[in-house]
């Protein structure tokens, strides 16, 4: 085996990249919950987490510990194997999906291997992403079935029907993008969106000629919210009706796995929306004289953030906050300086814009959750089959027509 590894240094690099990404991702997941709670709290005019650490920054840690140490109850009569399998399936699939996401255009060297940001670069990357997400339904359906309880069963039934229906709309809504890009490869899809219309409007697929993918994007994002079981489509877990839906009988870390799986798929879907419709890591500003300072936007933002942290930290009520927040601010300031250096600055542009767009989508997710009521099951199906699917089909027809006409 050891010679196998020596023969294939790619494997070593891949393992290291996976470890780093996994670490970053799990941290991001934890802080995504913090972010969601904070944003929803502010929408609802309350403070959100505030006790654990300054601004509740240690809340994810506290939550994690709580999940680990809670009693883990298995309902009697549960199908044990499947009951344990389901959360693993959910989490591992949604984590796997992120392996296919490219985070930036740059390349770097590791153990003499030139390698890119992102783990896998497949020719049919998009198809594979869909393949993995299409398996996601098993986690939910099996969890519902194996709990041997009625609410989870109903939740599981709902989810399998819902996810299968919306997957169709999800897949169909990106066909327009595929037609424009002519490739399944996510990097090539981004590359196809380079350039500007009339010198200022980025040629992202959402604006692209000959056929802006506005319909496609609306369908995609709606279906994506449904695929990730978030409000207003969170029927499989609808706490008002089905208590907690498919994960009613899950506690402790198994519950946390569902939770993390949901947030991981939120990230995946936001990344996909960014890549397919909003130009991935491409900057929205043309690199012309007046806007050249945009290269230093990440630095500026970080610097502003660090200044605010220091200012806020000094005034903070608790001693811990008085120490932690300014230190964080100084670290951010250091980062800001670091990414202003010429070599790093080029490298950081792609990931910066990519993550910024992903962040906006995640914010929209939370915003929607804070605003809308929930659909009823039959209405949900009606939206999926009678609105989203025809709209995305129409989008395909219109796009292909526009391409044919455009070629003339």
């Amino acid at each position, binding site marked *: 085996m050891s010679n196998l590894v020596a023969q294939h240094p790619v494997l070593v690099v891949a393992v290291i990249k996976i470890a780093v990404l996994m670490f970053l991702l799990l941290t991001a997941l934890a802080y995504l919950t913090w972010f969601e709670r904070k944003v929803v709290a502010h929408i609802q005019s309350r403070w959100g987490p505030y006790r654990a650490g300054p601004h509740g920054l240690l809340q994810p840690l506290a939550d994690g510990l709580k999940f680990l140490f809670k009693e883990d109850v298995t309902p009697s009569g549960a199908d044990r194997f499947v009951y344990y399998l389901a959360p693993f399936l959910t989490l591992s699939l949604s984590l796997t999906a992120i392996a296919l996401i490219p985070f930036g255009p740059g390349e770097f060297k590791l153990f003499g291997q030139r390698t890119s940001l992102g783990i896998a670069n497949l020719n049919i990357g998009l198809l594979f992403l869909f393949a993995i997400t299409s398996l996601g339904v098993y986690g939910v359906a099996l969890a519902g079935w194996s709990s041997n309880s*009625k609410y989870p069963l109903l939740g599981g039934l709902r989810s399998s029907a819902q996810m299968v229906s919306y997957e169709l709309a999800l897949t169909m809504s990106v066909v327009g993008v595929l037609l424009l890009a002519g490739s399944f490869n996510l990097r090539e899809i981004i590359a196809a969106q380079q350039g500007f219309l009339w010198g200022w409007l980025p040629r992202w697929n959402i604006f692209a000629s000959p056929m802006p993918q506005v319909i496609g994007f609306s369908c995609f994002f709606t279906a994506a919210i449904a695929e990730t079981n978030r409000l*207003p489509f*969170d*029927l499989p877990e609808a*706490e*008002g009706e089905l208590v907690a839906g498919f994960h009613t009988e899950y506690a402790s870390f198994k519950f946390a796995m569902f939770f993390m799986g949901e947030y991981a798929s939120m990230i995946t879907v936001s990344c996909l929306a960014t890549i397919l419709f909003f130009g991935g890591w491409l900057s929205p500003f043309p690199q012309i004289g007046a806007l050249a300072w945009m290269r230093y936007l990440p630095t500026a933002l970080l610097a502003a953030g660090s200044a605010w942290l220091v200012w806020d930290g000094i005034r903070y009520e608790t001693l811990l906050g008085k120490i932690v927040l300014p230190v964080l601010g100084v670290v951010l300031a250091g980062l800001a300086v670091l990414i202003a250096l010429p070599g790093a600055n080029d490298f950081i542009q792609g990931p910066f814009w990519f993550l910024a767009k992903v962040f906006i989508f995640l914010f929209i997710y939370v915003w929607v*959750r804070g605003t809308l009521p*929930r659909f009823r*099951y*039959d209405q949900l199906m009606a939206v999926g089959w009678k609105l989203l699917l025809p709209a995305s089909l129409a989008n395909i027809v219109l796009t292909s027509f526009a391409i044919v006409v455009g070629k003339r």
Partner: protein
Amino acid sequence: MATTVNTITGTQTMVLNMGPQHPSTHGVLRVVLELDGETVLKARTEIGYLHTGIEKSCEAKTYSQAITLTDRLDYLAPLSNNLCYCLAVEKLLGLEVPKRAQYIRVLLTELTRIGSHLVWLGTHAIDLGAMSVFLYCFREREEILKILEMVSGQRMMTSYFRIGGLALEPPPGWLAAVERFVGMFPSRIQEYEDLLTKNRIWLARTQGVGKLDAEDAIALGVSGPTLRGSGVGYDVRKFFPYSSYDEFEFEVPTRTEGDCYARYLVRLAELRESLRIIRQAMAKIPAEGPIRSEAPGIVPPDREKMKTEMEALIYHFKIFTEGFSPPPGEVYQAIESPRGELGFYVASDGSPKPWRVKVRAPSFVNLQALPKFVEGRLIADVVACIGTIDIVLGEVDR
């Protein structure tokens, strides 16, 4: 898993126990649903999980002591219960309450109505998934509870109305607090409406759901907004005015659709009408004047008198040790509580303890309509229908 075969359609049905522990049953209500897929074939309502025997307890208390028990009935509108019980006993005694106390009673019960409707709106919305509305409503309810605390010293179990008037002189500055609330509240109602009234999902979830026509509504004896949403303009405040309600100008909002959305609109309109009544009451309440009627032996004397007059001290002692004895007879007094016609039947045998106290709880009667609302509809509608009846289990089970 228990599945039974429905003999009529030949399909397998599933019996689902919704509650008594369920997030959307607003307490310990249990609904036994027979489901075909997600469609409700039959619904059976089981209550009694919060039965505390309040009516029996009343028979062992003096008339004044029983007031504290009424707080626990509809714990979202304690002052309505206080008011109804006091009015019933006052009717039994033939006691007239000073105008100032009457207006303060009206003002506070209307505040309670707003508070109760806010809880209804918030929980109804969160049942249907609109989480933010819930927190907005509780934000405003907090202000009301603060006013109640200011006046009575208690946020929820107020026991502020006493037989013959009020417990205490309201503290200085309380009207300013009401004023602040009244000034702020209309924009807040608008906020809820912005989030819900024209929201497509909200419309889809409530319109045409939980239909009840006027005839069925009357036959089932439902009252309050549930009845008025079906187009019957029965409001006790207008029909049998009590506590000077006839001196106030207000509308009784009705809708004819008879669905959840109609009831939602009725209740929202009631919020505005209550505000109107509160504004009028604020103008009417005299700055000075007695808050208790002059009835020696029934109404406790003022603190001041008690310390100076021998007679008053004796009455005070007698009232709080053995109570007072109304003449034998029976009365039924109804008021319009936030949930509908709240009635107290009080029978006296001439002793200091009521012979029988019966609460005509609006939630109890309205809840009977639930199977009518949900049969043939989906599980998700059950939640909407329970929410739209606006039940309080403390009152249903008593």
